[in-house]
């Protein structure tokens, strides 16, 4: 059935060329920092050297004396408006606990002062010349410690809002329970395990860059590397007491985000621009990106599950405590997604419990990062599935097959837990997990290798093993995320597509053009895309929650259908036909009896000849459901028992994203997500000194996977058809990153009997665990 539908497509589900690829490959100056603006000033920030301190006195007089320095701002010079930097829809489900500049610092790397100068050297000198008197306060660096009575209170200010329990440093909490009987009464075995992940950073290769300048009407223009241009506009206005109409945000090409740019950090640059009345440019250094932009939420997760001998999962209790760092951006939503995107994966017979907290610590601020809580939770859940299967002596593949959610089924979690608020009831309307599992098992050679490795491992210091994981995510936030589009027609039958949706390198500009082109019966190259400009493009929440294809795509489809109607209206007059008898095909309008008129003629008629009007339409879309993509991951690994090194020989992920609007781009998204996951599973993690200073905040010491660290990584798209998505599409960008942690934990256990529940699985950890096992 799904196959038949994709065969009908002309542009959708085709591997068309990404529209910006050639320019990027030729080094065209397309990124935020690639422009030279006359008279631009260079901004530099003074960051806190202390994890927790009050600013008793701050003196910028010496800094201002330096030649070329035009502004030096402290908390005294900017409005004090509590807000969140989280790029989320209004009202944001994150605490309003952040200020542009404050008289307290809450982590090493927190903002202290901001300087703008004519040269970068003067700005650097000025930052060093700012004199600060700190009253150092005790700091807390662990989320469990931070909740204990007597722990330092990080947000003791009176004016912050929406903090559930500031005295206990709790930035967000949520509890949910479905009880159908006594806990674990039905279980033959109870498995309880704790899983931990540390600070990971997105490492988008382009550092955060923002340029603020003024147009001829003295409006503030923010040209910035962001995933959320509309949220930037609103939150900068809020923080600086401006009106939205005073600001325009433009997003050029961005060098990756992965969630780190779903955050509003532009406020301080805008403040400098307003103060100096000059253009101001801020480019984070790599160290500043690591420490002072955003990270993933480190997690401490306790899973307690009950299972029967026949493979039924009877009870599931998930307790997750996230470290949200010094400020609570995304604190509630990441925590809720860790439950809402994972627990529905499997049928639970009796009782379900989710207990989540996000806790402040005096450490870097965690925010949105691909996977968004599901990465942390699937680590535990998919490892736990293997543990349970082992307890009852069942094949882990069969155990999952027996329990995963099926077409038409729902989960009490869907309604109870959304992202920051109650969710929506939904059932699964498309799922290709069964096919994905079958295909993946075959591709990796699961059963044959299991037998062979068991024999080969006996006589080698290299132990081989296999592991798997089943995953789901979401497609946008139901009843919250909205996108819109405008399409207008040109003389030659081409179209301009204006979308708020944000392409961060994902290729959304291209796939949204494909969707429009499919409806309008033109090649995708006849659709000219302009995106992410708050003055010129209609609203879109931005690129996050895997919402662009599903939500923004829905808006584009609706808009194109409206434009189609307008074209038919004009053609009906030209052909003297009833509208019902007309249809679009190959850049022309046809009547059922063979009469036809070209788009060119329709356009010229409407623009110039008769009943002159611009064929143009806008539409918005939000969804009532969030149909999950599904994926089955398989890892084939080797553990060198002399050194603890792990080599991932083959990694197969079979992903069901509904219809892949552009299979090449969908594969590329999944490849990147998987390799990011492999990298953080085996090699990443920010290390801190006892006083909270990051020790490896650079690409020298925090090294991510390079091309020589991967062997075989394969993405296989499993086509299904999601009735609620544009042309059957769901999302694809996030899900891939959730597989490697559990798949590798399972594979390493299979290879050498060591069960790792704390990431990353460095050679050090593995060898020491092997040693312990021997003793």
């Amino acid at each position, binding site marked *: 059935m799904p196959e038949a539908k994709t065969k009908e497509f002309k542009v959708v589900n085709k591997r068309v060329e990404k529209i910006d*690829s050639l320019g990027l*490959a030729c080094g065209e100056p397309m990124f935020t920092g690639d422009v030279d603006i006359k008279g631009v000033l260079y901004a530099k920030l003074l960051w806190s050297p202390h994890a927790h301190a009050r600013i008793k006195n701050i003196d910028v007089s010496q800094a201002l004396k330096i030649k070329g320095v035009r502004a030096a701002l402290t908390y005294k010079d900017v409005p004090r408006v509590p807000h969140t930097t989280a790029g989320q829809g209004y009202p944001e489900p994150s605490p309003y606990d952040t200020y542009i500049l404050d008289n307290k610092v809450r982590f090493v790397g927190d903002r202290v002062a901001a300087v703008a100068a004519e040269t970068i050297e003067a700005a650097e000198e000025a930052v060093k010349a700012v004199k600060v008197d700190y009253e150092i306060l005790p700091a807390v660096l662990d989320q469990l410690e931070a909740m204990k009575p007597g722990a330092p209170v990080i947000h003791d200010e009176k004016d912050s809002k929406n903090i559930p329990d500031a005295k206990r440093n709790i930035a967000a909490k949520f509890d949910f329970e479905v009880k159908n009987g006594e806990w674990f009464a039905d279980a033959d075995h109870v498995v309880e395990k704790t899983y931990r992940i540390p600070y990971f950073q997105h490492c988008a*290769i382009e550092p955060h860059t923002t340029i603020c300048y003024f147009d001829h009407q003295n409006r503030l223009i923010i040209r910035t590397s962001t995933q959320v241009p509309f949220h930037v506009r609103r939150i900068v206005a809020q923080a600086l007491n401006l009106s939205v109409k005073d600001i325009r945000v433009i997003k050029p090409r961005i*060098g990756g985000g992965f969630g780190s740019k779903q955050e509003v950090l532009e406020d301080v640059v805008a403040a400098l621009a307003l103060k100096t009345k000059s253009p101001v440019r801020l480019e984070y250094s790599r160290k500043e990106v690591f420490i002072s932009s955003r990270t993933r939420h480190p997690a401490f997760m306790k899973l307690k599950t009950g299972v029967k001998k026949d493979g039924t999962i009877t009870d599931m209790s998930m307790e997750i405590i996230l470290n949200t760092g010094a400020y609570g951006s995304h604190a509630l939503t990441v925590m809720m997604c860790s439950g809402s995107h994972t627990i529905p994966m499997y049928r639970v017979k009796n009782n379900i419990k989710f207990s989540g907290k996000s806790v402040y610590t005096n450490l870097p601020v965690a925010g949105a990062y691909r996977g968004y809580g599901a990465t942390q939770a699937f680590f535990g859940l998919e490892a736990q599935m293997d543990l349970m299967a082992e307890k009852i002596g069942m094949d882990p593949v069969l155990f999952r097959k027996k329990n995963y959610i099926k077409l038409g089924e729902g989960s009490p979690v869907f309604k109870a837990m959304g992202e920051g608020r109650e969710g929506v009831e939904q059932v699964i309307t498309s799922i290709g997990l069964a096919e994905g599992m079958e295909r993946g098992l075959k591709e990796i050679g699961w059963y044959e290798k299991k037998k062979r490795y068991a024999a080969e491992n006996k006589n080698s210091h290299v132990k081989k093993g296999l592991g798997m994981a089943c995953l789901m995510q979401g497609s946008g936030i139901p009843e919250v995320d909205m996108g819109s589009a405008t399409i207008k027609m040109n003389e030659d039958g081409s179209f301009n597509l204006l979308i708020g949706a944000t392409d961060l390198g994902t290729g959304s500009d291209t796939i949204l053009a494909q969707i429009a082109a499919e409806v309008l019966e033109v090649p995708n190259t006849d659709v000219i895309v302009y995106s992410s400009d708050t003055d010129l493009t209609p609203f879109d929440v931005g690129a996050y929650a895997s919402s662009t294809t599903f939500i923004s795509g829905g808006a584009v489809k609706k808009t194109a259908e409206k434009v189609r109607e307008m074209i038919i209206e004009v053609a009906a007059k030209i052909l003297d036909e009833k509208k019902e008898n007309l249809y679009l095909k190959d850049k022309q309008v046809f009547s059922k009896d063979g009469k036809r008129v070209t788009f060119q003629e329709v356009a010229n008629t409407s623009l110039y000849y008769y009943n002159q009007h611009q064929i143009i339409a806008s539409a918005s879309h939000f969804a009532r459901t969030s149909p999950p993509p599904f994926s089955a991951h398989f890892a084939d690994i080797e553990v060198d028992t002399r050194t603890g090194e792990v080599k991932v020989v083959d990694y197969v992920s079979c992903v069901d994203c509904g219809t892949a609007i552009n299979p090449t781009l969908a594969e*590329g*998204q999944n490849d990147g997500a998987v390799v990011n996951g492999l990298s953080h599973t085996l090699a990443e993690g920010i290390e801190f000194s006892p006083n909270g200073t990051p020790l490896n905040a650079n690409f020298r010491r925090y090294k991510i996977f390079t*091309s020589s660290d*991967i062997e075989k990584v394969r993405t296989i798209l499993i086509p299904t058809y999601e009735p609620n998505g544009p042309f059957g599409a769901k999302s694809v960008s996030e899900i891939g990153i959730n597989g490697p942690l559990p798949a590798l934990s399972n594979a390493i256990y299979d290879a050498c009997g060591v069960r790792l529940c704390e990431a990353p699985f460095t050679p050090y950890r593995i060898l020491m665990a092997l040693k312990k096992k021997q003793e």
Partner: protein
Amino acid sequence: MKNEKLSLDKNGRFEISLKVNGKPLSMEVKPSESLLEALRKYGYKGTKKGCDTGDCGSCAILMDGSSRVSCVMPAFLAHGSEITTIEGLGTVQNPHAIQAAFVEAGAVQCGFCIPGMIVSAKHLLDRNKTPGEGEIKHHLDGNLCRCTGYVKQIEAVKLAAKKLRKSSK
């Protein structure tokens, strides 16, 4: 023998002479200025700054034919050398086979790492017309990419090698 020497001018700058993309160029650079900063200042925006410690490769250029990171290199070191940046390989109107291959193979996502990646690929394909997968991975290991996982980029280099072999026949 009199040795070549650079001395600071009255503005505190060195005047260095080099060739960029085949064109002779004179650059005024501070002693502390890296080659990356100098190139971008003179309009070669394709070369990117990702880290400043030589670890990400987005600043890679060819210096006298050899791919190197330009962010840890003082500009004055390039005096007398031939530099090739991504702009020197091809343009949108007339792309190099490697650039076309990256586009065709779907290897360009955000594109920030791509100029450096293509420069590294050029260096590889200049010396080895038939690189195997292992050699490609080894040669590109200085170019970090977070978007693609390198999968399609390795395919792109294979495709580029094929294109170049075809065109040289």
